[in-house]
């Protein structure tokens, strides 16, 4: 059931049976989503800059608003005031259309994204399939932007992005297949419903195969979202700014809007499909709580993406393609078959699943502990031992 539409319908107190009321309700829903998306994208841009700043021993934007929280609004306003330049010799129609397409590609995904355990803008039974196909629009947008700019760097960026995105759609889809196999559905509602509250009940820890599938999905989704280490289409040290070199003002904002919103999409899909959606243990289930839990999980994934970006260098274009075709795709096939076989075994030996899940969970905890200890060592090394006794200049 389309709960959001229902809710809106309740609020405006209309009979959803009539076409006009349904249209108004839909419009309101999409406006709400647009508002959410802009806030998320803007907020993420702020969070990313602050996190990046702290990871690089600097502060990041902290001037506009308390702790710089309104920085994204200032940036948006600034960009809105900029002159809208279209380069001489550019294909004007395509040049104007490209950012819109990119934006639509990301905006469309919000139609099926879950907002918690029971919230959906529209609950499609082919939700994942829809999501995969609608994000392909972004490729066309970037290719158009690169081609129409009449700039060779843009063209190179556009070509790279086309090659990259077309290739990485395959591992994204393939790595989702084991989970689909497990849950037997493409609908987000059922994917979430099939998982439990505790970590070992999540899809990711179901078997080693889903575990690895998660990483494949994560990497491939990074590549689709143009994030480091796969930010090859816009790698500024190589291609100036890639496909969006010639864009300015609001059109440029559209691209970056799409990019940051896409971050959230990646996080949300990962949270819904692999990380147990909005479930909470100990029977604390309620709509609002599941909403919060879901957001927390999505934003944690987003944080990891940001964190990765400010840690890793960038692949070279051929290495990126090698990684896709020679590593991720074969691996995801193996995972698919492995999961199929595992399912058969689990069917025979039901207790095995919980043992495997617990073992995987234990491994995760161990790795986490190791990680924390490394972090502590590194913190100790980085701190400058102040010489308070030696104050002479």
């Amino acid at each position, binding site marked *: 059931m389309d709960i959001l539409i229902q809710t809106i319908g309740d609020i405006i107190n209309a009979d959803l049976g009539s076409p006009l009321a349904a249209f108004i309700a839909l419009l309101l829903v999409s406006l709400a989503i647009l508002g959410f998306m802009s806030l998320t994208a803007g907020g993420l841009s702020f969070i990313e800059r602050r*996190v990046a*700043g*702290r*990871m*690089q*021993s*600097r*502060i990041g934007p902290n001037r506009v608003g308390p702790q710089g929280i309104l920085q994204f609004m200032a940036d948006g306003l600034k960009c809105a005031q900029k002159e809208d330049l279209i380069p001489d010799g550019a294909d004007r129609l395509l040049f104007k259309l490209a950012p819109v397409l990119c934006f639509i590609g990301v905006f469309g995904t919000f139609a099926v994204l879950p907002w918690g355990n029971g919230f959906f803008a529209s609950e499609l039974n082919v939700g994942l399939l829809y999501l995969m196909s609608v994000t392909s629009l972004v490729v066309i947008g970037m290719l158009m932007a690169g081609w129409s700019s009449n700039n060779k760097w843009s063209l190179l960026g556009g070509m790279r992005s086309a090659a990259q995105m077309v290739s990485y759609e395959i591992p994204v889809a393939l790595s989702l297949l084991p989970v689909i196999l497990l849950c037997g559905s493409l609908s987000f509602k059922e994917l979430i419903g099939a998982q439990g509250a505790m970590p070992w009940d999540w899809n990711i820890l179901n078997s080693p195969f889903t575990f690895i599938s998660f990483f494949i999905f994560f990497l491939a989704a990074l590549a689709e979202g143009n994030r480091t280490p796969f930010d090859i289409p816009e790698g500024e040290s190589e291609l100036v700014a890639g496909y969006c070199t010639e864009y300015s003002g609001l059109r440029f904002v559209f691209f970056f809007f799409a990019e940051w919103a896409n971050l959230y999409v990646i996080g949300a899909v990962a949270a819904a499909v692999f990380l147990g959606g909005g479930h909470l243990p100990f029977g604390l289930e309620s709509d609002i709580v599941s909403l919060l839990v879901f957001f927390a999980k999505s934003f944690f994934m987003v944080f990891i993406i940001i*964190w*990765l970006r*400010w*840690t*890793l260098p960038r692949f070279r274009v051929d290495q990126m393609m090698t990684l896709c075709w*020679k*590593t991720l795709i074969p691996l995801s096939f193996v995972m698919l078959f492995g999961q199929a076989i595992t399912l058969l075994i689990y069917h025979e030996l039901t207790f095995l699943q919980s043992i495997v899940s617990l073992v995987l969970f234990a491994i995760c905890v161990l790795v986490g502990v190791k*990680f924390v200890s*490394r*972090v*502590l060592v*590194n*913190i100790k*090394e*980085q*701190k*400058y031992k*102040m*010489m*308070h006794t030696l*104050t002479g*200049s």
Partner: protein
Amino acid sequence: MGLGNYFKDIKAGLTSAFEGMSISLASLFVRPVTVQYPDVDVKSDEAMRENYNGPLRGMPDNYRGLLDVDLEICISCKLCEKACPIDCILIEDVKIDKKQIVGRNGKSTMKMKSPIQFDIDNSKCMFCGLCVDPCPTGAIVHTNEFEFNRSDRSQLISRFVKADDRAQLKVRGAEIAIEDAKAKAEKAAKKKAEAEAKAKEEEEASKDQSEAKGTKE
């Protein structure tokens, strides 16, 4: 590429990313090194100690900032003007009444001349400090002032001699020049007179001698 290499690749990628991420996360918890400059008084030791973790506290004594000239002890020797590699110093001077001054290095010197124009073009100055080294009295020094943005390039020229002083010095200088000229003329006249007297004496002496000779003969 064998299967072994394939897994080695994946393992190397994962472990190095693991370590890298632990380092970038670590810096998330370490205080940033940024000094938020206009908010923090960078010249003060205390403020810098609170806001910056590095070896520097405040500004060092020999910081090479904006040049400053102490005209009281400047003896207008023009060594700085000669030392400047880019000719951004211009000095014009007049003679003044002799004055005993004590330089920054503690040595006392006689001040005979004073600049009536001492300009430094800060838009050209590269703060190399070569003008400071040869100064015999320590009149020209670097301050630790580094904020000297101006709206106009002509305002970047620091003129150390004020217009009033310049006028005064010029008047006094002219007087001294006249006095000097007078003194010189007097001296010259005196010298001349002396020379004449000497010549006369010599003449007389020779006369005397010849007379003496004459008498002898």
